[in-house]
């Protein structure tokens, strides 16, 4: 299957979903007015990936901002990854937050409370925006 490689924009994140390595990255800002339109292809991609996943999958989330419109879509990404995990594969979420950004840490913890995937909270000086 083809990988997803999208450059970030002022309102949408850099996306790199790699089916060869099992590393899925979401980086930058996710604040589009219409998040469903942006996330639909990403969610479909994971659906397809779930049919033949790597034994280990890692979702690296490194967001500076995300809006509430994106938050439901990001939850959907996690839910699709729950399917990958329930079929016996290892899935891990790396949730990055900036040192003084307790709001972003809380946001990660909120997902962690809802989703049955192992989360690792990673504190960074500054999120990688590129």
């Amino acid at each position, binding site marked *: 299957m083809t990988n997803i490689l999208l450059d970030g924009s*002022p*309102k949408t994140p850099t996306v790199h979903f790699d089916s060869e390595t099992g590393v899925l990255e979401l980086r930058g800002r996710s*604040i*589009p*007015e*219409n*998040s*469903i339109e942006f996330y639909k292809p990403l969610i479909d991609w994971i659906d397809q990936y779930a049919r033949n996943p790597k034994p280990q999958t890692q979702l690296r989330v490194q967001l*500076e*901002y995300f*809006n*509430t*419109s*994106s*938050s*439901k*879509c990001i*939850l959907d990404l996690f839910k699709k990854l729950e399917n990958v995990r329930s079929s016996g594969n290892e899935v891990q979420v790396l949730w990055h937050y*900036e040192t*003084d*950004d*307790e*709001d972003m840490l*809380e946001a990660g913890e*909120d997902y962690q*409370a*809802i989703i049955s995937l192992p989360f690792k909270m990673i504190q960074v000086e500054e999120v990688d925006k590129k």
Partner: protein
Amino acid sequence: MIMVNRIFDLYDELEKQRIMLSFKGDLSPDLISAILNLVEQKLVVTEPEHRIRKRVFNVVMECLQNLYHHNRSGTITKPEPTALDERQGVVMIAHDSSGYSVLTGNYMAKAEVSELKERLDQVNGCAPDQLRDLYKSRLGDGTFTRSGGGGLGIIDIARKSGRKLEYGFVPMDNDNTFFSLNVNVTT
């Protein structure tokens, strides 16, 4: 027509209210990007604390997107017939020694007022940990609204503010109401 000598009065009023940015008109996604960019640049100058900068930016972003998604077009019949441009709204950001206020206003359908008021009152009645629980349950319940957020916007705004949301409804005619919202972010 506005008299030329009123320009100073308008300017003076904005100054007195400590408005650092104001916009009235139609909002498009490009315009929202431009305003957010401007807000971000101004905050770098006015706000030393990174965490507060991010909170204010978040509140402004959610407020602008609320305006974009929920504004109403149509015609106001009172006090005099006026056509509403689609997505016409007003946004102002005030800054003084106690912090920031994000003020927005827009027309909405009168029929939707009671539901919105209920949601605002619910959020205002919550302690911070209750707000967090409300956010989580609304996030996890699987419903999407027209804007995709599933009614999370107001909860998120209240969480980032940490203060009660101040709001008002001004009835315009049988079908339309003007909704005002003031979100404070204290420093």
